[in-house]
């Protein structure tokens, strides 16, 4: 366990260094920071002086070290647009994105698992065929089209759910702005989380089905039948647990897709989260914010992947955490 954590930590460190180099290049090379700071009314002489003061004429390596030192202290630069530390801006938007992703993941789990299991148990039944039909269609509809149609029907035609913003939010634990505690917040969460879930669901339904069908052919499932266990126990304990092992790995890999999809969803629903912020930052060429976003997403990415590996190790007894990892 200890060795696993150490290895994992080293791996995370390498990934973070790579991401920080990219962020550094984004921040340092994109646009002219002096120009951003003082505008055009300054003479070339003065500019040069400012550049020297800022250390922009030092070697790239020195500049990177300075950047990294600041980054470790949580200083990722100041947003041009918001005029405040980029990290603060991002962290303020973090709860919105996390709540959106969390709701989508919960929806995926409670819908995709039963659907996949049903489709695997009786693959020739009408229900299973219908499920597979819809999952094939779902796989072919890009997330932004799903979102557009959800908005069209739920907000415009039927006027059931609002189509943009987070609605009413409350601050809990003095830093976390949540939409879970108000009815309005939950109503606003409905469409974005549904489209995020629907976009990733077909993949998981199909995966769970094919894995489960394979598991159901195995000897230990036949043995479980021969023991006279109830079908529920066989499907949901014996088969499902083995089915989920590869699914967990895939879920870890899908984290990146989830990040990309939050950018799309948040843009469409004007959800005030990190993805929407990132999109805004791009259109405003707010380089410190872009580079800070990369750092934060990179860190979250590393954390999720570590968590996924930990969960995998806990669920799968044949993997001893000490020997797992890189």
């Amino acid at each position, binding site marked *: 366990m200890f060795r696993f954590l150490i290895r994992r930590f080293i791996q995370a460190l390498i990934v973070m260094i790579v991401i920080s180099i990219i962020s550094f290049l984004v921040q340092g090379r994109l646009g002219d920071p002096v120009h951003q700071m003082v505008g055009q009314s300054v003479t070339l002489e003065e500019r040069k002086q400012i550049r020297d003061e800022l250390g922009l004429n030092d070697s790239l390596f020195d500049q990177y070290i300075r950047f990294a030192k600041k980054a470790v202290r949580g200083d990722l630069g100041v947003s041009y647009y918001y005029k405040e530390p980029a990290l603060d801006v991002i962290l303020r938007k973090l709860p919105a994105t996390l709540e959106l992703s969390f709701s989508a993941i919960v929806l995926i789990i409670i819908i995709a698992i039963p659907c996949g299991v049903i489709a695997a148990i009786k693959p020739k039944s009408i229900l299973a065929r219908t499920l597979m039909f819809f999952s094939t269609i779902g796989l072919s509809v*890009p997330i932004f089209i799903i979102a557009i149609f959800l908005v069209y029907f739920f907000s415009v035609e039927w006027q059931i759910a609002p189509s943009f913003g987070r609605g009413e939010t409350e601050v809990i634990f003095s830093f976390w702005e949540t939409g879970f505690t108000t009815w309005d917040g939950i109503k606003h969460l409905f469409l974005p989380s549904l489209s995020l879930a629907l976009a990733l669901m077909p993949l998981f339904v199909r995966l769970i089905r094919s894995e489960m069908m394979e598991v159901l052919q195995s000897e230990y499932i036949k043995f479980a039948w021969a023991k006279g266990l109830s079908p529920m126990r066989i499907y949901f304990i014996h088969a499902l647990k083995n089915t989920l092992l590869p699914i967990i790995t895939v879920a870890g890999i899908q984290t990146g897709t989830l990040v990309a999809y939050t950018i799309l969803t948040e843009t469409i629903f004007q959800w005030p989260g990190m993805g929407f912020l990132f999109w805004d930052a791009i259109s405003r060429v707010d380089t410190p914010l872009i580079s800070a976003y990369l750092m934060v997403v990179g860190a979250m990415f590393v954390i999720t992947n570590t968590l996924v590996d930990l969960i995998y190790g806990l669920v799968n007894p044949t993997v001893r955490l000490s020997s797992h990892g890189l």
Partner: protein
Amino acid sequence: MKQTSKEFSITSRSKHWVHLWHGFLSDKIAVMSLLIFAFYCLISLAAPLIAPFDVRDPNFMDLENSEIAPYWIDGDSRFLLGTDGQGRDLLSVILYGTRLSLTIGIFAVLIQGVLGICIGLMSGYFGGRLDNFLMRCADVQLSFSNMMVAIIVMALFQTIFGIASYQHLAMYMLILVIGLAEWPLFARTVRASVLSEKQKEYIDAARIMGIGSGRIMFKHILPNTVSPLLVIFTIQIANAIIAEAALSFLGLGMPVTQPSLGSLISSGFNYMFAGAWWICVIPSITLIVLILVMNLLGDWLRDHLNPKVYKD
């Protein structure tokens, strides 16, 4: 001896494909999908010939004609599928948009394929440290989804070069970015096939006869990986088209002046709730049907060629 065994393997291989083709013809959904896909390819190729308007004509945009509903609603026979917000004939833009989306998808996957096949062959054939290193890279690359990498790279690209010069390069950048992102899928599959083929005697025989490793890899090993590669190819084109559409939708892909299906949907999004639904819905359906038939073809191939495609 070698001659006969080679002949045998070729005849049995072609027999296998003939058998497969007969099976294919008896599956209505698969045949329909192939026909629709062929139709898409045809209209993409012939877009400049069959499109009622020339999209490069400066008079093509005419705000006086904006937001005209399709022919069956409005009765304006000039515009079969209506016009968009800038007064462009929707049919013409969709034809050109499909052409662009398909081109980007196919070329991106070609890059993925070439890169992945070369890396997979080297990794599997030479093994050892090189293999270890390449597969580690594949793992890392895979864990960053292509969509995420593409969004970030395109965003950076746009900020570096500015919108204006970006527009000229957009198509090549899209092909490159989507193409570079997902090579590991090809590499892993090819590597697995190489490892299993390497065990077989004919490879040893070829090596002993002094045939170079490049020749062995491309002439002897690669043909055996055709079926899994075909499956990945089909499904990856669908994925690449989705990725391109998503990027264009975000404004990071094709510009409005040179619209792909994604950018058409994006610009139609704004008109959707103002009553001009066709600007958004018709390109959406075009895109969905294209991806659906690719996925159906991929599924059929996967079920019938039964290759070991890496799921993760």
